[in-house]
C-alpha cells in the first residue's frame, strides 16, 4: 500500500503530490528532472513499477508532455511535473492537449525566473504563463495549493477536473509548498472522489470524438478499444478531421471556450476569511496565502481588522465573486511573489475607486507576515 490511507504522517508537499497522483489512479508519468519538482518524479519512479503502472524519464520536457498525450489517448491517466523552464517547453504540448481535448495533469512547482532564474528559490512568476503560455485562444484550468494536505487533495482534484472537462489541468504549486513538510491526516480509502475515465457508449459507427453536447464535452475513446478516429492539432470537425470551414472552426473554438466559461460554478473555489465585514482585504494565493493568514492574526491582536481572500482555482479567474465581494472594498492588498501578475485580474474586476495595492517580493524569499502587516498599516 503506497498511500497511507487513514494514517497521519509528516510529509513534504511534493511527496503529497506523488501520493495524490497514486490515489487518483495515475497510470502514466513522463518527466524530465528539474528543481524544485524532482521529488515528484523520483517518488513516482519508486511507486509506479510496484503498481505495474508506467513511468518514464524522457529526453526533455517537450517529449514528456507529448508522451503524456499519447499515453492518455491510449487510455492511461497521465501526469508530469516540472518547473518554470520546463513549463516553457511544455507549452507546445499543452496547446495540443487543449486543442485535441486530451485530459492530463501538469504540476508546475514554481521557481524564480525568467530563464534559469532562481532554481532553488520560490516565485509565483508563472501565473500568466499558465493562462496564456501556449499560442492561440485556449481553455485553461489552474489550481494553486497552499499546504501539504492540499497538495494531496488538489492533485486528485486536478485529475478529476481533467477528466470532467477533457482538458489539461495545471497544478500551480511553488517551491515553498513543494518543499515544506507538514503533518497531514490521510482520509480513508474511498472517502475521496476519483473521477473515472469517461468512455463512449455509442456504437462504433456512430462515434464522433468531438460530438457537440450540452456540457461541451464528449467522452474520449481509448485507442485500441475499437473506436478508430483521427487526432490532430489542426482545427478539426466533430470527427477529428482537419477543417477550414468557417462554421466548423467557429463551433470548435467556441466549444473549447464554453466548456470552461459555462461551467464556472463547478470550477470556482475561493476561500474568504472576514472579507465581507472589513473594508481592507488581502488577496493572496499559494504560499503567500499562509503569510496573509498569519498577518491577519497579527493585525487582529493589534485590534486592526482585515479580510483575506484566496482564489484556489486561479484559472478561470473567479471574476463574478471578485466583482461581487471585492468591488465594495476600500483597499485590496495583493502580495505576490512576482512583479504583479494576478493583481491585474483584481484590477480588471474592481472599479477605479477601489485602491488595489501591490506588494512584491522577487528575491526568491517568501513574503513574511510582517511585511504584509506593515503594508496594511501603511494603507490604513
Amino acid at each position, binding site marked *: 500500500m503506497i498511500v497511507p490511507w487513514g494514517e497521519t504522517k509528516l510529509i513534504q508537499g511534493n511527496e503529497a503530490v506523488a501520493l495524490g497522483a497514486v490515489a487518483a489512479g495515475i497510470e502514466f508519468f513522463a518527466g524530465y528532472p528539474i528543481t524544485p519538482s524532482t521529488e515528484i518524479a523520483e517518488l513516482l519512479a519508486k511507486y509506479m513499477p510496484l503498481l505495474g503502472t508506467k513511468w518514464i524519464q524522457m529526453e526533455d520536457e517537450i517529449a514528456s508532455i507529448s508522451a503524456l498525450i499519447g499515453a492518455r489517448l491510449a487510455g492511461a491517466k497521465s501526469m508530469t511535473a516540472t518547473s518554470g523552464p520546463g513549463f516553457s517547453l511544455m507549452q507546445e504540448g499543452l496547446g495540443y492537449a487543449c486543442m485535441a481535448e486530451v485530459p492530463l495533469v501538469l504540476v508546475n512547482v514554481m521557481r524564480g525566473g525568467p530563464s534559469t532564474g532562481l532554481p532553488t528559490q520560490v516565485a509565483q512568476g508563472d501565473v500568466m504563463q499558465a493562462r496564456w503560455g501556449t499560442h492561440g485562444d485556449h481553455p485553461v484550468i489552474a489550481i494553486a495549493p497552499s499546504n501539504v494536505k492540499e497538495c494531496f487533495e488538489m492533485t486528485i482534484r486536478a485529475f478529476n477536473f481533467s477528466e470532467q472537462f477533457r482538458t489539461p489541468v495545471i497544478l500551480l504549486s511553488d517551491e515553498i509548498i513543494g518543499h515544506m513538510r507538514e503533518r497531514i491526516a490521510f482520509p480513508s480509502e474511498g472517502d475521496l472522489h476519483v473521477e473515472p475515465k469517461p468512455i463512449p457508449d455509442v456504437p462504433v459507427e456512430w462515434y464522433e470524438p468531438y460530438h457537440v453536447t450540452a456540457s461541451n464535452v464528449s467522452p474520449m475513446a481509448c485507442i485500441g478499444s475499437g473506436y478508430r478516429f483521427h487526432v490532430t*492539432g489542426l482545427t478539426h470537425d466533430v470527427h477529428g478531421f482537419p477543417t477550414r470551414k468557417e462554421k466548423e472552426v467557429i463551433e470548435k473554438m467556441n466549444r473549447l471556450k464554453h466548456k470552461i466559461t459555462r461551467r464556472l460554478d463547478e470550477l470556482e473555489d475561493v476561500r474568504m476569511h472576514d472579507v465581507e465585514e472589513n473594508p481592507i482585504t488581502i488577496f493572496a494565493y499559494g504560499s503567500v496565502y499562509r503569510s496573509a493568514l498569519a498577518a491577519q492574526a497579527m493585525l487582529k491582536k493589534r485590534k486592526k481588522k482585515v479580510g483575506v481572500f484566496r482564489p484556489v482555482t486561479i484559472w478561470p479567474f473567479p471574476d463574478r465573486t471578485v466583482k461581487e465581494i471585492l468591488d465594495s472594498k476600500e483597499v485590496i492588498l495583493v502580495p505576490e511573489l512576482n512583479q504583479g501578475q494576478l493583481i491585474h485580474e483584481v484590477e480588471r474586476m474592481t472599479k477605479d475607486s477601489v485602491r488595489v495595492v501591490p506588494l512584491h517580493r522577487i528575491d526568491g524569499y517568501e513574503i513574511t507576515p510582517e511585511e504584509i502587516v506593515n503594508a496594511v498599516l501603511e494603507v490604513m
Partner: protein
Amino acid sequence: MPAPLPYEYKYLRSKKKFPHVWCPGCGIGIVMGSIIRAVDSLSWEKDNIVMVSGIGCTSRMPVYVDFNTIHTTHGRALAFGTGVKMANPSLNVMAVMGDGDSLAIGGNHIIHAARRNINITAVIVNNDNYGMTGGQFSPVTPEGARTATTPYGMIEPGFDVCNLMEGAGASFVARGTVYHIIELDKILIKAFRKKGFSVVEVLAPCPTNFGRANRLGGPVEMMKLLKENTINISQAKAMKPEDAHGKVVRGIFVDKVSIPYDKRYEKLCEKARNSAGASR
C-alpha cells in the same frame, strides 16, 4: 457492374478524405501504399494499429488510412508514440515522418527512441527538403543543393540517416526507395515484425520543390534518378569501391535481436515487486 475495389481500399478512408494533399509526382503516396501492403500481409487488425506522425507532407498520411491515427506536433511523433506504446504495448505503433520532421526538430526524440529501443517502426520519407513550407533545406539536403533557403547552395554536410540510427542503437535499420517498391514492401514487413526500434528510410522525389530548384526534371526523371543512383547492398558488396562511389546503398543494414523497452519495463516491475516483497 463496377469492378471490385482493390484490397488496399479497406485500409483507406477512401470515401471521406480523398483526394489527398500531395503534389503530382510526390513519392509519399507510394510509401503509403507500401505500408498498407505490408500491414495486409501481416494480417494486422486495423483496431490495433496506431499511426503517429509529426508535421509536414509525410505527416499528412494519417488522415488517409483507417487506423488509429495521431497527427501530432512538429518533430514529436515518436514522443507521442512512446506514450501510446507504453500505455498499451499490445498496439502496433508506427511513426511516419519526413526528413526535416524526424531529423531536425525531432532529432533528439529519434536518437532517444533508438537508444531506448522502444518497439515502434519509424518510416522516414526522405525527399531532401521541407516540402510543405516551400522547399527549404533539411538535415539531409546534399551539399551544394539549391533550396528556398540555400539560394547559393547548401554548405552544411547532411546526415546519413542509416548510420545515425545504427549508432543510436536501433534494432533494425534499412533504406529503400519509392522506385524499388517490391523491395520496399519486403523491408517494411520485416521492420513491422521487428521487436524493438526499427527505422526505414525511404528515398522519395519532391518534383515540386527540390526537383525544380535543382533542375532534376519532372516526376519521371526523378524516379529514374532513384533507379540509377542507388544500388542494392549485395551489389555494393560485389562492386569495387571506386565503382560504388557516389551511389546510395539500399537494403537492410542492421537487424539484431535486443529486448525492446516495454519488455524491459515489464521486468523492472517484477523486480520492484520482488524486492518490495523481500523487504517486508
